[in-house]
């Protein structure tokens, strides 16, 4: 299945070819650029090239690979930084220097590294497809090696092995490898999906307390530039209560990714005290890397995340930002001359997004374990206007909406999450968990906190007309309390010891604020002046 290039327009290449299949991966030109068949016509295929097409010539050959765009899964994934096509950037750098050039034959997983294979089966055993043949331990992760098809094992290795050599052989001579490949656009199978009920603790008070997340849930936070999306993503990546974090830098800044790597290398995971990088996989396609690979990057990432979910782990996928993915989709669509929908985005934007979000969830894996995949995505709406298509398409499918507010960000209130507009559809479900495990007053305090903030909004409007001097003492007390809630509770400095707040600390802090408010309020009722009442509230606390 080989062809030749007949047309080139940007990263879209038309190839005279026969026998190509949709979504097949092809190697384009003498340089062997990676491309994907996106449309088939009689005797020709339209190929989306994932790399820079500069210098590509008419008449150059195109070779089929007979497989779809896949990722390699196996030991050695964690701590790595990959690009959108799962090329290991560290090793690419070692091979071609600090600037990314096209380079072939660098496998995503280090095939030279030695692992210890512990067999479960022995030579002579009959196995079915999917049966576990053995396992490889990598720190906290246990990679299961499963049979790709039914047959009788002729030989099974034990002990030291590499990914290049089979760890077992069938009687027909075919091998079983410790790494597997999986097409990125196909969700990995599981037994069944379970309703998400357990909270995912992020350590951010405003999220855990007011807009909680669940394991297996989805959340988005849209915000204009400078509202702290990236810092929030990275803070959650550092502290969230997950076994593995897959961080996708999708069309964002290179300096940020360098910073993330450096920081994660030096920081310790709170729970295991290993380096944070030991539980992190980074997928990065910065804004100046090819656009088509940016489109693929979130699929590459989610497939790796599913692989770990299938080990029965709780995986968190963070993507910054999904808008850049949407824009990549738009660029590809417009280069294919498809009919545009809203604001030039293709009409399949929302269905593709919804299908992507559906890959999150808590599942019972094929092996019977319980694993979850949670997604937190940032959205960068143009002009900070949330009525745009990507934000709207996300809103229809996600469970938590955390609105980042430019006004809050300008007054350096971070995380700049707007408490009156954000919501969590999981709040009702997980409040019970917090009541049972953290504080019996959790639900009640949450309710009161919301009420206070709501009443404050009304009072502010009044104060803007009559002046703060014109307010009654009880109202002024309320405004002082909400000021405390804002500055001591909702606000959280990502660069201090306060960057992580456990649910217990969160509950205690809210309890203290509400407690002194109650005491001062009681004082007012006894006829004390506001200052005296405040003093009384402070004394007791």
């Amino acid at each position, binding site marked *: 299945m080989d062809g030749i290039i*007949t*047309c*080139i*327009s*940007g990263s879209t290449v*038309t190839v005279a070819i026969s026998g190509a299949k949709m979504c097949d991966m092809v190697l384009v030109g003498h340089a062997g650029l990676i491309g994907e068949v996106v449309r088939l016509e009689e005797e020709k295929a339209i190929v989306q090239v994932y790399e820079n*097409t*500069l*210098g*590509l*010539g*008419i*008449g150059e050959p195109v070779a089929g690979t007979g497989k779809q765009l896949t990722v390699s899964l196996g030991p050695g994934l964690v701590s790595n*930084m990959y690009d959108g096509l799962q090329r290991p*950037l*560290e090793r*690419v*750098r070692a091979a071609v*220097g*600090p*600037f*990314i050039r096209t380079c072939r034959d660098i496998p995503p997983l280090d095939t030279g590294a030695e692992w210890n294979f512990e067999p479960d089966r022995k030579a002579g055993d009959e196995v079915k497809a999917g049966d576990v043949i053995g396992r490889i331990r990598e720190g906290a992760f246990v990679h299961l090696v499963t049979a790709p098809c039914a047959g009788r094992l002729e030989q099974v290795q034990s002990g030291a092995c590499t990914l290049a050599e089979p760890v077992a052989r069938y009687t027909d001579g075919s091998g079983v490898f410790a790494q597997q490949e999986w097409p990125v656009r196909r969700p990995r199978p599981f037994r069944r999906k379970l309703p998400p009920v357990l909270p995912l603790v992020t350590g951010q008070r405003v999220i855990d307390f007011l807009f909680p997340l669940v394991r297996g849930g989805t959340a988005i936070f849209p915000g*204009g*530039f*400078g509202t702290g999306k990236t810092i929030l993503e990275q803070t959650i990546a550092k502290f969230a209560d997950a076994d593995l974090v897959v961080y996708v830098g999708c*069309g964002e*800044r*290179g*300096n940020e*990714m*360098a*910073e993330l*790597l*450096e920081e994660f290398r030096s920081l310790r995971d709170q729970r295991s005290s290993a380096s944070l990088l030991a539980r992190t996989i980074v997928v990065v396609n*910065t*804004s*100046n*890397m090819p*656009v088509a690979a940016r489109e693929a990057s979130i699929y590459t990432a989610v497939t790796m995340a599913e692989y770990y979910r299938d080990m029965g782990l709780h995986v968190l996928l963070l993507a910054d930002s999904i808008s850049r993915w949407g*824009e990549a989709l738009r*660029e590809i669509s*417009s280069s294919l001359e498809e009919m*545009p929908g809203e604001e*030039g985005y293709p009409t399949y934007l929302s269905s593709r997004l919804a299908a992507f979000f559906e890959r999150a969830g808590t599942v019972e894996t094929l092996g019977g374990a319980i694993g979850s995949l949670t997604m937190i995505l940032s959205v960068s709406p*143009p*002009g*900070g*206007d949330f009525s745009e298509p990507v934000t709207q398409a996300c809103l229809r499918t996600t469970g938590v909406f955390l609105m980042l507010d430019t006004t809050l960000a*300008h*007054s*350096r209130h971070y995380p700049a999450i707007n408490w009156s507009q954000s919501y969590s559809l999981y709040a009702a479900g997980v409040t019970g968990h917090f009541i049972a495990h953290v504080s019996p007053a959790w639900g009640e305090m949450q309710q009161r906190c919301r009420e206070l903030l709501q009443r404050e909004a009304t009072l502010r409007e009044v*104060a*803007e*007309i*009559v*002046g*703060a*001097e*014109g307010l009654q003492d009880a109202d002024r007390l309320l405004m002082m309390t909400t000021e405390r809630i804002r500055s001591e509770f909702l606000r959280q400095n990502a*660069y201090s010891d306060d960057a992580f707040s456990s649910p217990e600390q969160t509950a205690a802090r809210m309890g203290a604020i509400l407690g002194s408010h109650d005491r001062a309020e009681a004082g007012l009722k006894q006829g004390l002046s506001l200052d005296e009442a405040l003093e009384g509230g402070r004394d007791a606390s």
Partner: protein
Amino acid sequence: MRLCEHRYRTVSSVGGPLMFVEGVFSVRMGEMVRIIYPDGTAVAGEVLKISGRTVLIQVFGETAGIDLGAKVIFSDTVRRAPLARSMVGRVFNGSFEPIDGLPPFIPEQWGEVNGLPINPTARACPEEFIETGFTAIDTLNTLVKGQKLPIFSCAGLPSREVAAGILRNARLAGGGEFVVVFVALGLTHHDYSFYMDTLQEMGTGFVAFVNRADEPVVERLLAPRFGLTCAEYLAFVCAMDMLVVVTDITNYCDALREVSTAREELPGRRGYPGYMYSDLASLYERAGRIQGSAGSVTMLPVVTMPEDDITHPIPDLTGYITEGQIVLSRELHQRGVFPPIDVLPSLSRLMQHGIGAGHTREDHRRIADALYRHYAKGRYARGLEAVVGREGMMESDRVMLDFSDAFEAEVIGQGTARREIGASLDAGMALLRRFSLEAT
């Protein structure tokens, strides 16, 4: 490699800066061509799109005088930039031809004009403080080496003077100096000569790429790429610290829109092409530092916001790519504050790494935070004052009003004089003390 030169006389149509050539064999994407007009003038062009035997070419120059019989010569190479140390001190046009009356330099190396993305694992974190001499930047929105920090201006505001002030005063923490790459895009002669005077006064090295308002629009797309290729070479091969000033990005984006429309591409917001984000990123992302390399590329683009609108696609997309922004305010300018930097919407994302003990001063973060917090309150109080009047406000709000007035007049409004970082921090500290607002 072709064994003979490929020449065609098969131009089938010309429109704007674009032309179609028919019946072309074995051409490649981005291939450079030379077009010979009937009167003998030669201009450069580049292959944009190939559809079978038909090739779309972008012409870098005037298409006036061209006819369908023009000769098109294909070069079999993609565009590369000649690079050498001797570029420093020279002035070029948007096509990298010297316009300072001196002969062309001898290249030591050829570089990719569009640049290659820096491998994120090879980047070094920007963390070295750059002193610009302006308190509003140094204290509150600190610039660091390898950062890209745009100046968002409005028509009629002194963005020129702010940029020139930074050029004149920028110093590295270690005392080193910058070599400046100055890229002028669609500048009027008036602006151009202002900047050239500044550069000449500075006495440090500079390389200038100049495309004036009446020069070919398509060159505006090339000039910043040449400038950055040159900066990357001087930084990462010759180990120099480069400061790249591009003014004005708005003209760049308008040129991009003009070419995109000529190509009959689908227009996005306000007619700008949908790929403008990626295109701008291909410029801005070239700033940075590389591990194991002594040089750096710091970028200071100037964006004039059309209609003073920060949500306009040009400042909006810029803000999403760059590491912060310095926003100039018409209100402050009208009150005579110079530099008229509105610190509330301004931001430096990399500030965190470049301040504190070992960089500036241990109390930097505390002072900056306190100034921000109180100034934000004061600005809110100003809104209140407009409605309820000063009398109806609480005493604490009235203090904030006075504080923010004094902050604008004394801390921000320093005039053209240069302030060292220590003096900047002391000015902020003194103000906080005067209003008994401790820096916590």
